[in-house]
């Protein structure tokens, strides 16, 4: 498995261009109520796990660059100004914030100083568990006035799936240790869960996502973000997708996951699907996709269950097709032709 991923990765790295610019945008999010959030993407050297091969679904390693730390800092400064008044700042470097090869600790301190001058309630970064240690966390906590939240890619609480389907390179144990550490320093943890890794069928993926959410919360995560797998270029998932051995989850599955998760947990549960409605992303039949996507975004931003209830009331012909797929896919013993490609309108 690792060999295959590596060879695809190498090809991808040759074929994609490195990024030069910091990108940012505004979006809706939730802290104790709906807030205005800013997202900043820093093009660093790239996730060290990804450069060595990496996860089966991740194409973010191709967002990497060779620009200097100085340059990143300068662009970040300008971007922060541009974003204006926000309560929630999310800094993503498509890798690990605390990986010193990606971001210089001195630069981080400077960035935090800039942030401290603003009135931002919470800052969220991302990191793999191995870069979360006493030093990095305590330093960060010391230099930042705002609340600190770390997003960790747990993906699933099932070690077998994480290792054999995602090739994540970290265990549940690693995650647990990292969460405990964060909580010790009053750092919030947002657990990222992957919906439908390769080799899982639709039903298995729903159950896996729900079990993982439960486990993540019990371990100590303060919120959960569900990320449906989308097919990025030059990934192992794309390799499978090209051969019809993988299809992204249905939007109905996302609705089901959020609904059942909401019934069991009280923490914020989020779902911002990228490329929703497109064939490479989570989708339904095409007719109901937009409505469902909007419902999901509304729910994520407000955490108001009424949006979820509204979603269940949507009546589309494809819903019963989805239900059939859930029931029957498991008996196909291997390849199954996704029913979305066969819906007659």
């Amino acid at each position, binding site marked *: 498995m690792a060999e295959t991923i590596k060879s695809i990765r190498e090809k991808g790295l040759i074929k994609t261009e490195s990024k030069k610019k910091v990108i940012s945008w505004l979006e809706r999010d939730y802290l104790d109520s709906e807030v205005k959030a800013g997202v900043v993407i820093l093009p660093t050297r790239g996730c060290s796990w990804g450069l060595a091969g990496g996860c089966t679904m991740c194409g973010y390693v191709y967002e990497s660059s060779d620009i200097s730390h100085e340059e990143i800092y300068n662009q970040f400064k300008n971007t922060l100004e541009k974003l204006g008044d926000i309560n929630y700042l999310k800094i993503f470097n498509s890798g690990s914030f605390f990986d010193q090869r990606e971001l210089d600790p001195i630069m981080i301190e400077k960035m935090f100083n800039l942030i401290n001058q603003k009135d931002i309630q919470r800052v969220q970064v991302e990191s793999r568990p191995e870069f979360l240690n006493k030093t990095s966390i305590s330093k960060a906590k010391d230099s930042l006035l705002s609340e600190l939240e770390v997003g960790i890619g747990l993906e699933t609480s099932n070690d077998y799936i994480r290792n054999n389907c995602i090739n994540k390179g970290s265990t549940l144990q690693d995650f647990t240790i990292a969460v405990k550490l964060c909580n010790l320093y009053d750092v919030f943890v947002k657990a990222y869960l992957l919906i439908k890794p390769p080799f899982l069928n639709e039903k298995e993926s729903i159950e896996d996502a729900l079990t993982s959410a439960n486990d993540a919360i019990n371990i100590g995560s303060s919120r959960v973000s569900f990320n449906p797998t989308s097919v990025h270029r030059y990934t192992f998932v794309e390799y499978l997708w090209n051969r019809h051995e993988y299809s992204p989850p249905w939007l109905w599955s996302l609705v089901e996951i959020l609904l059942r998760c909401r019934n069991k947990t009280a923490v914020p549960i989020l779902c911002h699907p990228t490329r929703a409605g497109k064939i490479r992303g989570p989708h339904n039949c095409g007719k109901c996709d937009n409505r469902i996507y909007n419902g999901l975004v509304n729910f994520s931003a407000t955490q108001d269950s009424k949006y979820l209830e509204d979603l269940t009331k949507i009546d589309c012909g494809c819903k*019963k097709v989805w239900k059939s797929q859930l029931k029957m896919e498991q008996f*196909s013993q291997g390849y199954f032709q996704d029913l979305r490609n066969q819906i007659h309108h």
Partner: protein
Amino acid sequence: MDTYLEIIKHSGPGRIGKFNLNGQIVPTPNFFHFPDYPEKHDIYLTNSNLRTRKNPIIYDYTFFEKNKINQSKFGILPDFSIGFDIPRAIVEEATIKSYEIIRKYPGQGIVLTGGKFPDLIESCAEEFNDRPLIVIPNGQKLAEKPHLLAETIPLIREATSPNSALYFPFAPTTLFPILAYMGIDFFDSSEAILCSTKGEFLTPRGPKIRRETESVCYCRACNGKPSEKVVDNPKYLFKHNLDFIRSIVSEIRESIKEDRLRELVEEKSGYDTRSMTLLRILDQKKGDYLERYTPISSRTVIEFISQESYNRPEVRRWQKRLLKRYTPSEEKKLSIILPCSAKKPYHKSKSHMIFQKYIRRGAKGKLGLIQEITITSPLGIVPRELEGVYPASRYDVPVTGHWTRDEISEVVAQLKDYLDKAHTNAFAHVDGRYRDICTSAGINLGKKMILSSTALKFLSEQIGDFLTNEKISYIDKIDKIRAICDFQFGLGSGKYLLPKGAKVRRYQLNYMGEQVAALNPINGLLALTLRGGDLLKEHGKYLVNISFEPKTDSIFCVGVDKAGMEIRPGDEVIVIYDGDLVGVGKSLLNGLEMTRAVKGLAIKLRHRK
């Protein structure tokens, strides 16, 4: 607490059987239904803990509930199903994990691992060859790949025990007949379910979308309503689709009982190119596999309904045996080539009776020097003494007077082979296309092939002239029967069963006052007596060694130690125990199967010592 399949009858590799699931019996070929859907059925497959149905349920474990495996129930073990088009290294990794589980729970059904690699799939089948239910992976994709299907299914079938049932999940309904012909025992109702979900209506040509179909069906659900009305009602649509699957599966079972599975496959292949492609590939590349399971005779007349019929295993077998197990007698000096007749066996037809009258007249007492050969499509050539042997007397072919190029070249090849062996001169009393065939066969050999006119008198004269200087010595009447024996049991066997001095009286064959065999008028083959068995066993073929002394006429597979690989279903066999003859009778299975199987009947003895 045993689960297994008992073979009742073969029609090619396809077979009807009784699948015994812990005491509950289900006829095969059959299909699994799913309990969450309407309509009752004989047997279900599920992965929910349903216990309300009386009928047998097979449990299909999912990979993430390995801990729930219950050894006291029969189920299909979980496998990490990775798919079809996956790199080999990954398939091999997943295989290791699946094997761990399979080894831990013997006696349970399994899904074969191996992705798209036939060698990996075959290894898996060989390793776990005695599992009662063996599931083919990636059925939906495999159905689109006839070459791979033709390669893989026979490998699996012969790597596994005959008492293992093969299940092909998610097969399209149009492929059911040919898959059954290849040896698949179980399908499922998935196509009915998925089509109903999508609003598709099942027809012999496959699923049809609502707006395009106008067919009227009289099943319980449709009841004469146009299908546009039916598809709008999910309940009726489902009922119709499921009934459709039921009827195909029944039709398959019925055709095996009537020895007509091959005809059914040829007929149904007209509806789906995939099926036709698969049939042609099987005939071209797996002819031997098909032949190994094709019964040696049948009461049913073979119907040559399509071009594919000409590639039937029975035809191939006939031609091969003619090459290997038939030699025209050395005393023959002249071969007379005749056209075939509609009435079979040929000698009963008016035309042949007239031919024979004139031939006899011309021969003037030296008839024994003449070998009569009939040329026919599809078999090629039929020597007079073999024309009662199945299938020469039990086939039906559309006669239009037109022969295809393939037919002609086949027959020419057969005729050339015969003339090579025969070392005789040849006259042909033929017309039209037959004449071209004879010319084609004769010219290349440079033999004196004289084409006679339709005037039979001329033929008589020619014969008379030719034989003028020939001397005839004693011709043994029994030679004709010896030819049949050779054809049935192998070249040279005739001398063992019917030594010099053997006599024939009507259908009885005697030697030294004892009956050794009887000639079956229906299939033209010999049935042995114990004395015949004693004589023939010296030939060393068609022997079955068993491990016990039989107390009844039923010899079960479990008692079979060794069996000749030349044995076919329906063959006359000689049963040996401890070096001695203990009986003679008819086999139900081929040599390979009766040795490998542990359940079911192998031989029905006719005479027991």
